[in-house]
């Protein structure tokens, strides 16, 4: 089912998924290209037609930073924390927290979950995949 959402609703499927712990991407209803973050039209064909697509959830680390300074005082107890940029299998990237003790490395396989972040907003977390 393809729909043309109101502009203010383009991110709603992502946030509904995040609240349920799953990554929901946008798939163009015209050309099928998958995109993220949510946008009003497809960057490949400029179509407004869009449908939600639940992601596989697996990806590999593209880059990262380990933060040692509390840019928000509410994060002081989290220090240090690792933010990873992850190449998802669908070809888009997601930024989130890396959980666990494994040091980040390029191509490290990870799997997404969600957990509450600042203001309770659900944010991506990644766990290292053990195959």
């Amino acid at each position: 089912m393809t729909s043309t959402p109101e502009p203010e609703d383009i991110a709603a499927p992502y946030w509904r998924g995040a609240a349920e712990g799953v990554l929901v991407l946008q798939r163009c209803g015209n050309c099928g290209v998958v995109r993220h973050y949510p946008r009003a039209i497809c960057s490949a064909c400029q179509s407004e037609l869009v449908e939600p697509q639940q992601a596989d959830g697996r990806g590999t680390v593209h880059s990262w930073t380990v933060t040692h300074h509390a840019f928000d005082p509410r994060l002081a107890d989290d220090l240090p924390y690792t933010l990873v940029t992850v190449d998802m299998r669908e070809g888009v990237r997601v930024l989130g927290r890396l959980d666990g003790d494994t040091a980040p490395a390029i191509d490290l396989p990870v799997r997404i979950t969600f957990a509450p972040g600042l203001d309770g907003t659900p944010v991506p977390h990644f766990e290292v995949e053990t195959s």
Partner: protein
Amino acid sequence: MSRASVVGVGETEYTKRSPRSALQHQLEASLTAIADAGLTPGDVDGVIPIGITGAPVEEYVADFGITDLRFSAVVPHGGASAVGALQLAGAAIAAGLCSTVLVPFGRNTSSGAKAGQRIHTMPQFHFVSEYERPAGNIAPAQLYAPMARRHMELYGTTSEQFGEIAVSTREHALLNGRGLMTKPITLADHQASRMITDPFRLLDCSLESDGGAAFVVTSPERARDLAQTPVDLLGSAMGHPDSPSSITQRPDLTRVGVAKAAALAFEAAGVTHADIDVAEIYDCFTYIVLCQLEDLGFCAKGEGGPFVEGGRLRLGGELPTNTHGGLLSQSHMLAVNHVVELVRQLRGTAGAAQVAGAETGLVTGYGDMGDGGVAILRKGTS
């Protein structure tokens, strides 16, 4: 053939926790630049205020007694705005829209919001604000750190190479006399400075500072009749990275907007890299200098680390860079101070940090998450 010349430059004192407002800094720097040119405030007929702290042009009309403002615009590209404004001023003058353009900047950040708060008021950062800030990705240092980390992993670039940029820039600040930073640093100091967000240590990060800087642009013909040796704008270009508003989604994390602008600017200027005597490279973080040196074509992608070693960026080196101390050690004036310094270098009035015989120079801007600008200037004939 140049179509515009920079004829006046001005700066305020650079401090922290200044009692003076952003507007006061802008007006003071502007008046200094206008007087430097040998003009009066009412001669200005174009204004391009820089940055989110920029006062509306109506303030200048009223405060400067401008009776016939013919051109105004805003360049919304953060740290690339100063070079963008220089380009736009040149285009407006060449098109006959106006004759004399003021580009003012001034801020009071120490007493206000820090960069990690400011960017979230800006629409171009909305993806960061909505999707990444809740995870703790808040400040520019965190946004750019994965770019640097990727470069290190792919090419073997080291923190010590970032440190070389911090050390040489500090050396230049000490010679400048206006720099906020007044003590020399060593590579060991850089390595011992606290980690902010890996791989950026404290001494990889630019300053939060207060003050103002401004420059005045007019036609080359008019420039010859004014007070200073004119500095001609030979060529300029702007460029934007792919996925400009989300670094996370950017196909190549190691390339920024100047990669698209550099060849255009060199072609327009009719000069080559070997002609560049001095460079003022946007330096919000050490790595951003290294990355731009590659994207500008001074070395190949991945070779920026070895390129900055051996004193190449120091006075007396092959490419003296950020001879005023930059955003890292002089003051964070959003690269308006970079334009000011390049003009002084090409006039031959840069004081203790003067590059002997400098005739042609380059200035860049890097804004928001990678918007880029390049301008190439040359000493004119008075």
